[in-house]
């Protein structure tokens, strides 16, 4: 007997009475989602900035290796297009679009539609997400309703930069992934 069959039979032999699956209410909270969203991003150690501020940050920083995948802002980037994510190891800034944000926790939904390689939001040193400001939902419940008919192969909620507190509970930003997250609301 295969292990698959063995496991399934062991469960079936218990003949457990099936309990009901509850319906999930919408839990619509009366909150100002944009303000809540900004506060959540900041709590996650990200930043919400204006488009102008983004442009001045980029020009002042002198970054050479920038990739812009955003359809929402215009910025010509000169970093060569790549055919393997490993070549992005030196990438300094990636700019990508977010589909929508979640007010209660600052999570921003992205799928494989937004990036040619799944590694991009992680391997880049700094991450910028451009998000339409009218695309913010209050809680995770609405987020899953909103994406229920999507057919992505990879979906991701990003809520902040890479972080860790594994050394004596001291918060350090920039563990393995992006060392910063800037969100531009447009």
């Amino acid at each position, binding site marked *: 007997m295969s292990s698959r069959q063995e496991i399934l039979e062991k469960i079936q032999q218990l003949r457990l009475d099936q309990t009901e699956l509850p319906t999930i209410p919408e839990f619509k909270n009366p909150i100002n989602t944009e303000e809540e969203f900004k506060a959540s991003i900041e709590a996650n150690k990200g930043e919400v900035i204006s488009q102008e501020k983004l442009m001045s940050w980029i020009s002042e920083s002198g970054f050479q290796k920038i990739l812009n995948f955003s359809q929402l802002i215009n910025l010509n980037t000169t970093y060569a297009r790549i055919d393997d994510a490993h070549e992005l190891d030196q990438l300094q800034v990636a700019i990508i679009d977010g589909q929508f944000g979640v007010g*209660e926790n600052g999570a921003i939904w992205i799928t494989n539609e937004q990036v040619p390689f799944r590694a991009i939001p992680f391997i880049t040193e700094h991450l910028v997400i451009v998000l339409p400001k009218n695309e913010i939902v209050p*809680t995770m419940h609405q987020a899953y309703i909103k994406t229920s008919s999507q057919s992505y192969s990879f979906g991701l909620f990003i809520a902040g930069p890479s972080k860790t507190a594994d050394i*004596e509970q001291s918060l350090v930003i*920039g*563990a*393995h992934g992006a060392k910063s997250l800037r969100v531009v609301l447009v």
Partner: protein
Amino acid sequence: MSHSKASTDFLRNTEHAKWHDETLWMIREKRDLASQKVPEWENLRTLASSIKEHVLSNLDQLLLEFEANATKNGIQVHWAKDAQEHNQIVLDILKKQSCAQVVKSKSILTEECHLNPFLEKNGIEVIDTDLGERIVQFLHQPPSHIVLPAIHLKKRDISELFHQKLQTEKGNEDPYYLTQAARTHLREKFLKAKVAITGVNFGIAETGEFVVCTNEGNADMGVHLADVHIACMGIEKLIPRRNDLGVFLRLLARSATGQAITNYTSHFRGPEKGKQIHLILVDNGRTEQLGREKFRNSLKCIRCGACMNTCPIYRRSGGFSYQSTVPGPIGSILSPGLDLKKYSSLPFASTLCGSCTDVCPVKINIHEQLYEWRQEITKANPNHAEILSMKLASGIFKSPLAYRISGILMRKLIKNLPDSLIYNPWNVWGKGRKLPETPQESFRNWYLNHRNNEQ
């Protein structure tokens, strides 16, 4: 070693024990604040518990649904009845890829299966990529907490360790500096890895996708750079619908660390072009636990660790005192199901205060199960001396007369003996605590003299 002996050792370093207690309590307080911001928190707990109840009552059907959908999406699904089979499946995939070095993000299941020593014995180097796990791996230790693997260590220990292993400056204890050293060290490993292993937080039957949550981004760094992703998942990690994620993700990080959500929540539905995803469904004792009615709902656990942070015993004894993969209150109800004899002292490492039950985001009645395991353990591991004294006590309590006589004797005995000679268990009591002063008469005697004759 029994839990009580291990905890006595832990408490000898009073300064460190105090730090451990206070640090975990701080996380419990963060959890309180985060949960208080969600007005429907208690509703979410009830919902999460009922959803998992449904999963456990319908596990075979949901597993089949999950398998069918995942396969349709291009995920290769494997089934492992125990740890050994799980480890062998992983090894076979690695061999097929001619892979000698693998990166792995946090997975309690692979700890439970002792995957690392197995792979190492077979000539494969495993690199744990979660910072805390990499630290304990360098020390050849298991994690001491399921969410905070290195919570038992201080930064000077880590500084010294990184000086030896990563050539950091001696004496530099700055957490940022140390984390950057680990980032550089692990970045190189990520770029080289052909295969990456992760755990699974949730598998969704309806869509065949699975979700992995991290703050460091290490799971994603591993799998998106590798050609092959191996995801190891306990069969109880299933949820029926994608919408259920809304409930569980609102509870998980808030319960674990007091964050509203982990910074990365990745949904894997199919492999990236030209790559592979293997998903291993693991039983390893879960179907046995499912068959134990009193202990079944321990399988609802979503591994948030909140019961550890709140537990006054865990905080004062450390994860290693439990000597099981999952320590703390939840570990003490899961582990006896795997080896009743080995873990027989764990259900007694509790005052049954019930804080674990009240903090649990999926409402597992942890402290009641600790009580129930005690009943099973005394049946399965007869400790004759204890049975005798318990029987004696039971004989006393069921006979009012014998009880009264023994009460009088007890009072006399305690009154007339020096503290050092007072019999067990009072002599253990007496080492750190004074005994109550013995009154002239019991309440019963007083009542007989003052009230009873009035009636």
